[in-house]
């Protein structure tokens, strides 16, 4: 089921849970912890999924947060515009959010795949561009108060669990299936591993990369929906820290920045590790700045562990030979 890296990661998670239980006992192993995690997890997770798709094709998406806020702002404005239509306006708003996400993704994808510009440069440019457009539309203010049907998406509960968690799970399952089982997903991994070889094996590389960025854009649109609904408002600077946190989660989850590696399962375990860790630090009344320092330490520790276990494995193989 799980590959070796995922098993190690799972071991890491179990270790952290045992640590938490040892330190805080029943306070840690409670329903409250689960609920706090369930509230925190979806937004980080969705952003990480969007990042992951582009990283697998050896790309990068620095504009992911700008895409999210832009989609949220335009969707919010349409919802206000069609306010008279009642709950139907919510449907229109969500469709607009998803399509703005897809459109911004398509812009990124077109520049990266057809013009063959480096993805880091492209998305850095579009990061500023989308942020600028969003800032220009809102003039820096927030857009507030939506139809109750819409806020249910962010704050409603099913079986005692928050609704965004279910959105996240559904997206994770769908994207996970696309990556692991569909032809499109397999092509993504092949392009990420070796682009030249993919071209010679007859894959329409440009089209696949383009589609990957659009898929990431749609996930960004879904994130916009969850984020706007949860806060019941949207502003340009919402979610600014998510990009770097998303990168931490993604690289902890074993997704290679150079492309071609990483699975949805690894990413899911990484998100859980980060949110368990945040909960433990919260219980320890840790200073919020030190908390972010510890995020960095986790990433470095993970690099150490990976390096040494890889070396040990190499030695083992050499001995066997």
């Amino acid at each position, binding site marked *: 089921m799980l590959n070796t890296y995922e098993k190690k990661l799972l071991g890491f998670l179990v270790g952290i849970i045992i640590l938490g239980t040892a330190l805080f006992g029943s306070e840690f192993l409670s329903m409250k912890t689960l609920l706090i995690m369930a509230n925190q997890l979806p937004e980080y997770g969705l952003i990480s999924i969007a990042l992951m798709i582009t990283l697998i094709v050896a790309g990068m998406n620095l504009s992911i947060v700008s895409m999210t806020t832009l989609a949220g702002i335009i969707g919010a404005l349409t919802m206000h515009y069609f306010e008279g239509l009642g709950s139907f306006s919510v449907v229109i708003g969500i469709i607009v959010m998803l399509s703005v996400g897809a459109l911004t993704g398509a812009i990124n994808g077109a520049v990266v795949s057809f013009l063959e510009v480096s993805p880091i440069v492209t998305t*850095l440019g579009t990061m500023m561009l989308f942020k600028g457009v969003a800032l220009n539309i809102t003039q820096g203010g927030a857009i507030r108060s939506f139809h109750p049907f819409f806020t249910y998406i962010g704050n409603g509960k099913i079986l005692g669990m928050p609704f965004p968690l279910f959105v996240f799970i559904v997206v994770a399952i769908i994207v996970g299936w696309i990556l692991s089982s569909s032809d499109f997903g397999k092509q993504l991994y092949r392009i990420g591993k070796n682009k030249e070889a993919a071209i010679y094996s007859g894959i329409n590389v440009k089209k696949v990369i383009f589609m990957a960025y659009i898929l990431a854009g749609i996930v960004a649109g879904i994130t916009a929906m969850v984020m706007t609904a949860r806060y019941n408002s949207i502003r340009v600077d919402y979610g600014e820290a998510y990009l770097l946190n998303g990168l931490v989660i993604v690289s902890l989850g074993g997704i290679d920045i150079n492309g071609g590696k990483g699975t949805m399962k690894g990413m899911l375990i990484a998100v859980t590790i980060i949110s368990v860790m945040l909960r433990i630090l919260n219980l320890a009344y840790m200073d919020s700045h030190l*908390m972010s320092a510890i995020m*960095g330490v986790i990433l*470095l520790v993970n*690099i150490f562990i990976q390096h040494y276990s890889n070396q040990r494995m190499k030695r083992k193989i050499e001995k066997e030979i």
Partner: protein
Amino acid sequence: MSIRKYFKNRESYIFLMTIILWVSISTTNLNFANPRYLLELIGVNSVYFICALGVLPLMIKGHFDLSIGGMIAFTSVLLSAIGSWFFLPAPLVILIGAIIGLLVGMLNGALISKFKVSSVVVTLATMYIFYGVSKYIYNTFTEHFRIIGEYKIQDYNGIIENMSVLIMALLTYLILKHTNFGRSVYAFGGDRKLAIQKGYHESVSIIKAHGYCGLSAGVSAALHLITFNQNSVDAYLNIEFELIIIVILGGLHILGGYGTVFGTLIASFFITILKSGLVFARIPVFWHDMMIGAIIILVIAYGVFKERYKKRNIKVGET
């Protein structure tokens, strides 16, 4: 040099655009044309100039450093802590800052070369650590900080910032052109395997490049303290992305192997006058990000089309 040959340089376009921008803003507001003002502008924005020069060797190698903002924050906290105990003249502040930055940067480089991971991942981790630690120190010991800028010798009056930019530019030029390290940077940026075969030591080159980047961050932290009499813990939160933009506008090849000091200087100057020029031309602040983003995409797209045109010409010539 004929005009046509001149336009084959990657830097020529940004140079031309800078002049056009400068002239067009000067026509709307004559104060902008005053050279004294320009020098002052460079002094105030010296951090951008110096850090851009510092990342240049790193980016020619095809590496990134996301932890520059973190290193600036860390160095500036340490410097103001030292300044609360001892009296320090401005040049000494810069020297101490440079040493702290150099050590911190070399730590980055050592981690990258030891564990053979992407520079993005390592510097992301160290960014979190530097920011977190320096903000924690700053918040918990605030009352112990006396601001180091109080000891600034008044006669310098902005000259020290301009001088530092000049010295840094000369230093970067000399390093890139005339040292073994500089040659190894271009070699690794062009083709890693070839560079190793030529006998360049990879981990030494990585540690030196990251160390130089850290040095520039340390120097700029010191300069920020001297110029603004203020700690810069939060001031340069997203400077990494802005630096990447500057260096790329300056003609750097993102995959590595090409980049010049002249281009980087011009591009930093371009971004500086663009930022303050938009204010001078009374363009609302809501347009600024959008315009910078649009300019980057235009410049990049232009470069792509130019390269395609060149390729097509070669093909026609061959057949």
